[in-house]
C-alpha cells in the first residue's frame, strides 16, 4: 500500500440520492458488506451503530455524500477484506426486493456493489 491513502469505496449518484433520503428518515448511517449465502455479497445499510463492529472488522472508507451531515462508514469483516482488498468497490442501487435488515429494501430498491481492480502499486 505504500502508506498512502488508497480510495477503496465510492458511490454512484443514484446511490448517493438514496443515502440522502435514508439519512433523512433514519439519521446517520453505516454500511457493512455481507458475504455468503442468499443476499451475501450485498452491502447492508443500517442506522449508525445498529450493527456493532469490532476488532474483526475493517473500515474501508467513509463516504462523503452531499447533503448528508455525517460521512457514511463502509465496513467489512477483516477476513473478507483480505480476499477483496485488490478491488475497488462502488456502491450502486438497482430495483430489487430487499435482503437482510438493510434499510432500503422497503423502497423497492437494493444497494449493489460494482467492483474494479485497484491500480497496481507504483
Amino acid at each position, binding site marked *: 500500500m505504500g502508506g498512502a491513502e488508497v480510495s477503496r469505496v465510492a458511490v454512484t449518484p443514484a446511490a448517493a440520492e438514496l443515502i440522502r433520503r435514508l439519512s433523512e428518515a433514519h439519521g446517520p448511517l453505516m454500511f457493512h458488506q455481507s*458475504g455468503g449465502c442468499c443476499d451475501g455479497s450485498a452491502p*447492508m445499510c*443500517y442506522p449508525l451503530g*445498529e*450493527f456493532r463492529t469490532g476488532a474483526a472488522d475493517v473500515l474501508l472508507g467513509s463516504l462523503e455524500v452531499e447533503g448528508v451531515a455525517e460521512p457514511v462508514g463502509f465496513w467489512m469483516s477483516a477476513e473478507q477484506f483480505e480476499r477483496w482488498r485488490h478491488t475497488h468497490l462502488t456502491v450502486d442501487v438497482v430495483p430489487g*426486493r430487499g435482503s*437482510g*435488515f438493510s434499510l432500503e429494501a422497503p423502497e423497492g430498491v437494493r444497494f449493489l*456493489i460494482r467492483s474494479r481492480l485497484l491500480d497496481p502499486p507504483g
Partner: protein
Amino acid sequence: MTRYANPGAEGSVVRYQPRYDHWIGGEYVPPKQGRYFENPTPVNGQPFTEIARGTAEDVERALDAAHAAAPAWGRTAPAERAAVLLRIADRMEEHLEALAVAETWENGKPVRETLAADIPLAIDHFRYFAGVLRAQEGSLSQLDEDTVAYHFHEPLGVVAQIIPWNFPILMAAWKLAPALAAGNAVVLKPAEQTPASIHLWMSLVADLLPPGVLNIVNGFGVEAGKPLASSARVAKVAFTGETTTGRLIMQYASEHLKPVTLELGGKSPNIFFEDVSAADDDFLDKALEGFTLFALNQGEVCTCPSRALVQQGHYRDFMDAAVARTRKIVQGHPLDTDTMMGAQASNDQLEKILSYLDIGRQEGARVLTGGARADLGGELSGGYYVEPTIFEGGNHMRVFQEEIFGPVVAVAPFSDFDDAIKIANDTLYGLGAGVWTRDGTTAYRAGRAIQAGRVWTNCYHAYPAHAAFGGYKQSGIGRETHKMMLDHYQQTKNLLVSYSPKKLGLF
C-alpha cells in the same frame, strides 16, 4: 414434455389468492398499518399477488398468539404431535403437483426440480421428524445407589424462524418440522422475495394445526424481521442467509442471552481426481453431471458446487466434456418439464450475478461458456435469466471466494492430493464439498481433510433427511436435516433426585 399452465390461468393446477395477510392465531389478520407490497414472479417479472407488509405491531400480535398456544402444544403427547406432522406430509403429497407449480411460479426454479426434489423432500422431512420424535428418549444416570439424574427434553417455547428465498417451502420445512416436533410454537417470517408459496402451503394444512402453533408474518427484514429476531419474547432464532445478517442476529440474541442456529452459505469446492477419467463409463458420466450440478436451482443453493477443482492429469479432457455438458443445459419456461434451468429469483439477484461476471473478467478469469444474461424471448423477456457460466482462473479471484448464488462455476487445476486440499480449504466458508474418485482411500482421506460440514463423496446435491447438514467456519452454527436439530429446539431438564433419607452431615 408437459407445460403447466401459469397459476391462475385457465387449466392451471393451482391458483394464488390476489392478496395474503398475516397468518396469526389460526386466521388471516390484516397488517396493522394497512400496507401491502407486490410480489412478482421471476418467470416474467409480473406481479401476481400482494403481501402484507408487516411491522413490529404485527410481530407482537403473532408472538401473543404463539405464547398463548405454546404451553398446550408443548404438553401434547409425542404420538399426537408426530401424527400431526404425518398428516401434514400426507396432505402435501395429495397436492404435490399444485405445490410444485406454485413454488416454481414463486421462485423461478424449473418445475422438474420442484416436482422431484423440493416438495418430495419437504414431505419426507415432516415424516422424518415425526419418526425421530417417537424414537427420542430421555436418559438417566445412576450416580450412586440412592441418587439418580433424570434428563427430560422440554420445548423451548416460542421460536422465531427466518426463511430464505431459494427453497421457500423446503427451507420452511427444514425449520418447521423439528421445531413443531419438539413442541414449540413458531413465528415464521418468509423472505420478502418469496413470501407467497408458504401461504399456499398453509392453506392446505391449516386445519391440521391448533391455532397459534404456527404463525406467519410477512414483510421486509428491517420492518418485520428485525423486531422478530430482536424480541425478548422468542426463546431462539433460526436463520438462513448471509454473514452480516447472521452476525446482527447473534448480536440481538446476545442481548437476551438466547441461542441461535445459523446457516450462512459457502463457496463449496467440487474436487475431481484424475482417476475419474480412467474409463469412459457410467461413473465418468455421473461425475460430469456432478460438475454440471452448479446449475441446479440456477446456482441459488448455499452448497452450490461453485468451485470445481480438476486434477492436471485429466484437466483438458475433463473440462472439454464438462463444457459440452454445460452447453446442453436447457433453459426455458420454468413450468415446462423439459426445462433444466429457470429464472433467478429476483432482479437484484440477477444484477449481482452480472456484477460478478464483470469482475471475474476484469481479474483475468477466462469464460469457457456462457457469461451473460439470457433473453429467452416472448413472455420470458421480462424474467431474470442468466446463461450457465464456466470461469477458468485462480483461487485468489473474487469469483472463487464469494458465493455468487448464480449458475456460475469457477474452475482451477490442482497437481496432487495436498494441493487439492489446500485450495479447497482456502475459503472463509465450510458448508459443502464434493469429492470424486474411483479410489476409496483417496475419497476417505479427502473427505476427512476438507473443512466442511458435508462432503458429498461420488455424489452431490443430495439432501435427504437423516444426514446432518450445517457449516464449519463462517458457514454457520447447528446441524439441520437430522435428529440433532431436535436438540436445537429443546431444553434439557435435569431432575437430580436423592432416594436416601440420610442428611449430608455438613450442617
